[in-house]
């Protein structure tokens, strides 16, 4: 018998068997409770969209606010119209993010681990990490475009710098956060430093590292869109810039919503992965 099962034949405190009488001591959650979050969330979105559509239909704000239906239509048309260049934009932005964000993960995790594990390494890099993390990296875009041109290298640089620091800081915190009692146990059993790192420090740091990845996604997406917005040949940010200055509001909003959707999806996926790695944590969700 696993500890999660309850033997229903065991007598309750009143001396009756559980099957014959409703048990009061354990409150069983109602079935709809499981869907409560999804249900309320959906209702909220649908409600706001409906109000938005009504406002748009009433013509209170004439030209510049298309309703959700018009935007939905524009979004669909973007992907179905054979003359649409959205695929080139998507491929451009996608590659920039993949290289920049991938690089930030690879280098950020390594630097974060080194900074967490070797105090002197942290002393050396702390001023730089704090400096760059506090700087709004968006302001560097014009400089990067001058240095690296208007094509992908300047975008990759901005995405990389955007995602790098949250990943470094979280990874370092994860390594630093190792429970001193666990280290003592490992040392007492004569564990080597390598074993302590692999079996104690790293598994404990994984949830932190994944949180860094999740925070990095937001920075990476903001970076690519703003950088393309300022100067680019192709890309989703460039598309939003072009459609907004030419007042093609449906298309512009379609682009914005597409980006927001991508962000939500990536964050959700990373949250799922985080939860998987934390299944051993006690459940405190109500």
């Amino acid at each position, binding site marked *: 018998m696993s*500890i999660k099962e309850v033997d229903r034949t065991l007598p309750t405190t009143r001396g009756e068997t559980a099957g014959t009488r409703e048990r009061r001591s354990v409150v069983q959650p109602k079935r709809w409770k499981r869907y409560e979050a999804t249900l309320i969330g959906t209702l909220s979105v649908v409600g706001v969209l409906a109000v938005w559509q009504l406002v748009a239909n009433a013509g209170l704000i004439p030209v510049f606010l298309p309703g959700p239906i018009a935007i939905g239509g524009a979004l669909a048309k973007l992907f179905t119209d054979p003359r649409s260049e959205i695929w080139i934009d998507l491929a451009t932005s996608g590659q920039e993010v993949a290289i920049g964000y991938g690089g930030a993960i690879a280098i950020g995790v390594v630097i974060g681990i080194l900074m967490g594990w070797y105090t002197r390494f942290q002393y050396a890099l702390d001023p730089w990490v704090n400096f760059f993390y506090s700087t709004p990296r968006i302001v560097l875009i014009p400089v990067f475009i001058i240095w690296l041109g208007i094509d992908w290298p300047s975008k990759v640089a901005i995405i990389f710098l955007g995602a790098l620091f949250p990943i470094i800081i979280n990874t370092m915190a994860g390594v630093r956060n190792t429970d001193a009692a666990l280290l003592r*146990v490992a040392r007492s*059993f004569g564990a*080597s430093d390598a*074993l302590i790192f692999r*079996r104690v420090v790293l598994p404990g740091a994984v949830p932190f590292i994944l949180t860094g990845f999740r925070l990095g996604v937001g920075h990476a997406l903001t970076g690519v869109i703003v950088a393309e917005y300022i100067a680019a040949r192709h890309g989703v940010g460039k598309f939003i810039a072009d459609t907004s200055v030419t007042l093609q509001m449906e298309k512009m909003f379609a682009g914005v919503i597409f980006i927001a959707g991508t962000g939500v999806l990536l964050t959700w996926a990373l949250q799922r992965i985080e939860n998987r790695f934390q299944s*051993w944590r*006690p459940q405190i969700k109500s």
Partner: protein
Amino acid sequence: MRRPAKLIATGVVVEYWLARSEKIFTAVDGVDLEIGDGEFVAIVGPSGCGKTTFLNAVDGLIPVASGSLALDRREITRPGHDRAMVFQQPGLLPWRTVLGNVLFGVEAQGTMSRDEALRRAKQQIDLVGLVGFEDAYPSELSGGMQQRVNLARALLTDPEMLLLDEPFAALDAQTREMMQLELLKIWNRDRKTALFITHDIKEAIYLADRVIVFTKRPGRVKDSITIDIPRPRDLRVKRDPRFVAYEDRIWESIQEELAVKPERLLAGMPA
């Protein structure tokens, strides 16, 4: 009965560097102690008397400033496979199951093959009464069960000497008594040399062949009392007149160290 000596401590001094006040702090100051092969020794003493520090030195976690500390005539300088510690805080890896945690000790030592470790781990889990909980995570266990895992992890390494640092201090009274009883049962199987730190006088008398009383800080051996109560002992022995006599004697020995006048205690005044 005279046993051959297992652990020999001569003039053991342990010092700490206190970073905040920039001073050397002497926690243990000249402990002389001999523990025989297969002997169960408990150390009691006022809080902060350095008994846990001494145990950490025996484990090799902190260096000895002067004097000598030897197990089986080998000088102790670092943690070794011949000792295993049961900690006050269970110190279980939260992402590992009970089985995974029991295996961690031998895994860290790297001396036992995986198959052998797995087979013996299951025996240990059976011995400490955790059958059915192999796949449970520490967060799903009660404090008493976590300490069983802690104990099984140490036993699995099959040490020459078992070190126990107030392992039952954080448990409630009933669980603590159960654990004491079970610890004695398990210990009785192969009667390994054991050094048990506690602040609970009854616990010390109930478990040990000999109770050592430490002075207040810096710790030294003040008293050594052989507990002449036959084994196996069940929990009722705690009400035996001999047991109570030992208890009084040790209690008074500790009170002397605390320098609280008995009249004040009788009057119920704060110490």
